[in-house]
C-alpha cells in the first residue's frame, strides 16, 4: 500500500451501512484505505494496537457511529480525546441520531464534526463525498509520523 494512501477507521456495527460507506469512498478521487470495526471495544483495541490489531496502522480519520454494541461511540470518543496519542486524530461522528443532546454532547467531547446520515442514497453519497473533499483534500491533517513516533 502506498505511503500517500489515506487511512480511515470506520466504527460501524451495521454491515449494510459500512459497505455503503465503503462503496461511497470507492467512488472518491482520493486514494484511501478503509478499515471497519464493529464496536467500541474493537475500535479502542485497534487504535491502541492491542490484541489482533498489533500491526494496525494509525488512521488519518475516524468515522464514528454513536450507537454501538459493548461500548458506545460516546465512550469511544471520550477515550480517544483523553488519550495523548490519539486526540489529534480527527473524529467525524456519523450517526442516524438527530437528537440535539447527542449533538451537543459530541461537540463538548471534542468531536471534530457531527453528521446525521441522510436517508436517501444520493444524499448519503454526497455527504461522504463532502467528507472526502473536506477532510482528505482540503484540510491539512497533522503529520502521521508525529503520532506513530510516540
Amino acid at each position, binding site marked *: 500500500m502506498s505511503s500517500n494512501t489515506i487511512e480511515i477507521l470506520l466504527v460501524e456495527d451495521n454491515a449494510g451501512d459500512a459497505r*455503503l460507506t465503503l*462503496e461511497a469512498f470507492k467512488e472518491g478521487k482520493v486514494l484511501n484505505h478503509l478499515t471497519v470495526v464493529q464496536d467500541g471495544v474493537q475500535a479502542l483495541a485497534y487504535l491502541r494496537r492491542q490484541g489482533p490489531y498489533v500491526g494496525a496502522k494509525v488512521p488519518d480519520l475516524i468515522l464514528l457511529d454513536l450507537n454501538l454494541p459493548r461500548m458506545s461511540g460516546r465512550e469511544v470518543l471520550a477515550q480517544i480525546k483523553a488519550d495523548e496519542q490519539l486526540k489529534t486524530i480527527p473524529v467525524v461522528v456519523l450517526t442516524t441520531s438527530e437528537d440535539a443532546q447527542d449533538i451537543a454532547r459530541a461537540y463538548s467531547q471534542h468531536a471534530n464534526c457531527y453528521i446525521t446520515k441522510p*436517508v436517501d*442514497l*444520493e444524499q448519503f453519497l454526497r455527504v461522504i463525498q463532502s467528507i472526502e473533499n473536506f477532510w482528505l483534500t482540503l484540510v491539512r491533517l497533522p503529520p502521521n509520523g508525529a503520532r506513530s513516533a510516540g
Partner: protein
Amino acid sequence: MNPPLVGSYDDVLVALSVVIAIMAAYAALDLGRRITFARGWSRLLWLTGGAIAMGFGIWSMHYMGMLAFRLPVPVQYDWPTVVLSLIAAIAASAIALVVVSRPKMDLKRALLGSVLMGGGIATMHYTGMRAMRMPAMCTYSPGLVGLSVLLAIVISLVALWLTFRFRRDAAAWSWRRSTSAVIMGLAIPAMHYTGMAAVTFTPSTTMHEDLSHATSVSSLGVTAIGLATFVVLGGVLLSNLRFDSLPTPRQLIARYFLSLGLISVLAILGMLLVEHQGGQTGSRLQMALLLSVLGVLLVQGILVLRPALANIHQGISQLELAKQALQRKSEELARSNAELEQFAYVASHDLQEPLRMVASYTQLLARRYQGKLDRDADEFIGFAVDGATRMQTLIRDLLSYSRVMTQGRSLQPVDTRLACDAACENLHKAIEESGVAVSVGALPVIQADATQMTQLFQNLLGNALKYRNEQAPRIHVDARAAEKSWLFSVQDNGIGIEPQYFERIFQMFQRLHTRETYSGTGIGLAICRRIVERHGGRIWVESIPGQGSTFLFAIPRG
C-alpha cells in the same frame, strides 16, 4: 271474711307494659355493648345514665302493669314508697350493667349477678305493691311469690347471659339482638304478672296505713309516665341511628317508621287519656279505627315505601356502577390510544432503518447497473427503487402523523401569518414552478404549536398546488373572527372535490387519484385534521368540482 276483690286488666295498658319491657330489654342489650366499649369517665357516665334509663324503663313497665290492674275500689299510691321502688329498679339495673360489662363472666359471677338483679327487681315489685293505698287487705300466696322471685332470678340470669354474649356485637341493630330483646321483654311481664297473681285483695273498711303521702294516679299521670319512658328508652335506641351515615333511601325509611311510631305512641296515649277521663262511648271503636289507620300506614311502609326506596337505591347503585364502568372504559381507551400512538411512532421510527438499507442498495444497484443488464433487469430495479422510495415517504408521513400527538409542544401565542409565510417559504420552489398566485389576508395571533401550524398550512397549500387547474391558478389564505373561534380558509380554484368525498379525504391513507395522476400517501389531510383537533378545533372542506376547493378550519379563541 269478705270475699276477695276481683280485679281486671286493662288490655291497652298491659300491651303498653309489654312494649316498654321490650324497649327496656333492647336498651339493656345496647347499653351492655356501649359500656363494654367505653373507657374511663365515659364508661362511668354510660353506666350511671344507663342504669337510670334502664331502671326507669323496668319501673315504668311495672307501674303500667300495676295501673292496668283495676280493682273495684279506689286505689292511691304512697309516693315515697314509689320512689323507693324506682331506686330499687335502678340499683338492679346498675348491678346488671356492671356484671355484663366486666371482661369475664363465669357461672359464679353470673349467678351472683342474677340473684342480686332478680332480687332488686322483686324488691322493686313488692315495694311498689306496698305503695298501694286502698280500703282492702293484701294477702300473699307464698308459693306464687316464691315463683315470681325465682322467675325474676332466672330471667335475670338469661338476660345477663344474652347481654354478655352480644355485647361485642358492634352493629347497633341486628336480628339477634332484636330477638333477644323481644324474648327478654316478654319474660319480664311474665314475672310481673305472676307477682300480681300472688296477691289477693280482700275488702276492708279500716284503713291502717298512713295516707299523708298518698296520691291517686290520674290518666294524665299514666300518660306522663308512658311518655317519659318512651323518651328515655327511645333516646337510648335512637342515639344508635347515625342518620348521616345511612344511604338516603334508608334515611327516608327510618324517618318514616320513626314518625309512624311516634304518631302511634302519641295517639294511643291520647286515646287512653280520653278514655280514662270520661270513658266516652264509642272510644273503643275510635281506637280500633285509629289502630287500623296506623296499621295501614305500617303495611304501606313495609309493602310500598320500603321496596320502592330499595328499588331507587338499587337503581342509584347500578347507575353508580355504570358510571364507574364507563370511567374505567374511557381510561382504558385513553391508555390504549396512547399505546397505539407510541407503537406507531416506534414502528415507523424503527422501520426506517431496514428500509434505508433496502432503498439505498436498490438505488446503488440502479446507479451501478442501469443499462448494463437487460431491459427486464432495468424495469425490475425501477419498480424496486420506486417501491422502496414510496415506502420511505409513507413511513415518514406516518411518523409525522404520530408525532402530532407524541411530540407536540405546548400551545403558545403564535402569529399565524408567520406560520403561513414559513409554509410558503418551504414550498417556494413548487409555487414558482407551478406559477400559482398565492395571496394571504390578515391572519391573527392564536394559541398554537408553531411548528404544527406551519405544517398545517404547508399541507393545505401543498394540496392546493398539487390539485391546481392550469389556467390562472391562485390560492388565497384568509381568516375571520367567528363567535368563539378563528375561522381560517385556504381557497383555491383547482380541480375541486366531489361532495361524497368531503369526509373521506381526511381519513388516513384515503386517496382519490391513482399514483400515476397524483403522487402522495394519503396522510397529509389526516395530519391536518389531527393538528386541528389537537388545538381543539375542527376542519372541513367546501368545494365545487371543476371550480375549486376551500379548506376551512376553526381554532378556538383563547
